[in-house]
């Protein structure tokens, strides 16, 4: 089985936010929730870089470890998913997540949170693949249709890569060798405890 990962080649990201928009549109993500976002470091200064970030589908995912309701599970493709039926909206996964992936709709007064929402790697949730109820809760299940996450598929500069970890790491390595530099596979050390030499 492939081990699905995301890789953002920050040296190619042009901060167009198309991945963010594509994600929102593909899954009908509600207002106020962002499964993917683009962050710019050193904005307007020399050495500026933009990184597209979402759930990295970590190895030994801290969100899954810390969830008091045990609502997370890992698929055969190593995609980290969760059950909204079991989520209690405590917010602990956001404290645990190194990438700020979990999002919560605000459902009432005080800080009461609704069911957590996050990037599913376009792989839906525990409900039947492609069902209406799955779409309503988690969005489209492209993986079940043999397609990769839309954010990476439609990235105009091919900065954001999705797919089997070994393959996308190889692509990135070749790019770094060809152009002679690379700002690193952002988040890989934290998420997968590995680094691609750059």
């Amino acid at each position: 089985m492939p081990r699905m990962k995301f890789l953002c080649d920050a040296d190619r990201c042009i901060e167009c936010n198309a991945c963010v928009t594509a994600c929102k549109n593909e899954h009908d993500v509600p207002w106020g929730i962002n499964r993917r976002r683009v962050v710019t470091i050193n904005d307007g200064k020399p050495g500026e870089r933009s990184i597209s970030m979402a759930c990295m589908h970590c190895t030994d995912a801290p969100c899954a470890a810390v969830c008091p309701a045990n609502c997370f599970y890992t698929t055969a493709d190593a995609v980290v998913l969760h059950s909204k039926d079991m989520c209690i909206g405590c917010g602990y996964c956001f404290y645990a997540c190194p990438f700020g992936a979990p999002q919560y709709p605000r459902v009432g007064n005080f800080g009461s949170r609704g069911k957590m929402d996050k990037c599913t790697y376009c792989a839906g949730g525990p409900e039947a693949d492609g069902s209406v109820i799955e779409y309503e809760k988690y969005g489209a299940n492209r993986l079940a249709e043999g397609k990769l996450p839309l954010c990476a598929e439609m990235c105009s500069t091919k900065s954001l890569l999705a797919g089997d970890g070994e393959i996308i790491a190889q692509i990135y390595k070749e790019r770094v060798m060809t152009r002679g530099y690379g700002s690193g596979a952002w988040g890989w050390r934290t998420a997968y405890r590995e680094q691609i030499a750059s």
Partner: protein
Amino acid sequence: MAILVRLIRSVALALAMALMLPALAGAQWINPTAEAVQEAQLLKQTQRIAGECSIADQKACTVEQLWGRDWTYFNEWVLRLVGGGAILALIALVTAIYLVHGKGRIEHGRSGRVMPVFSAFERFVHWLTATCFFILALTGLNITFGKLLLLPLIGPAAFSTISRWGTYAHNYFSFPFTIGVLLMIPIWIHWNIPNRVDIQWMLEGGGFVGKKHPPADRFNAGQKSIYWVVVLGGLIAAGTGYPMIFPYDGTVIFGMQLTQLVHGLVGLLYVAAMVFHVYMATIGEEGAFESIWDGTADENWVKQNHSVWYEREIAGGSLPKAAPDSKQQPPRDPTLEPAE
């Protein structure tokens, strides 16, 4: 001659330009895109990489925060081991006290006369806080230990429902609980300042060692310790709990993690302390519970356990009254006799 000078000048200029060329060309070879920020280098400087983003929720502008995994480790291991260990240690302690020391008795039996110990308002404050604490403790323990202990028993669907209502209960019962803790400060703080009587009480082992009953004021040193655990622990629990009801107001992710860390640890140690308090007030000491239940205690009990206060009350004109039938000396139960 003039031609010669011009020639030399031209050659010198050409030489100078030839020497400068590599320097100029070198400047053109610097690749500005290769000078960008590196993730590895940023992570050496900071635990949290953040930047600008075009999303209203500014928490989204954090790319990476490394404390997440440390916080997870704390929550999954340190909190469970320290908190769970403290609760189990206190349960073991009260069991050992019961087995070795036995139930604390009114030595000379019930006098048949009672005196007022706690006013109605004091009892209201106590039970307001205690009821809320009981709910907060159960729902809090469920967050820390529920998935290990309760989930395997009742299954995911029921556990999820219980836990979700548990979080609501935990949030809403925190308000009356905090009011109760705050009320305990004006009504009881002056009785709980440690003094010389407490040192003697501690030196004599609080009556656990030997058969003596060391003198104590309205509250003995043990009760004073419980008071400070309740008040200080309650204030810390409230002070760290409300930021979690209003998350990220004026703090970033690290503040929230630290808040949860302190809240979890203080909460579990609080529960451990209450194990001891509940034991002492119910099984541990004969005649103790009724003082907080109906407000009166047997005169002999007061004389034995709170001698300093008893003498002051009697000197102040307090007259013990005849006890109701329920508080008369019960017929001796042979199973409760201390083994001698």
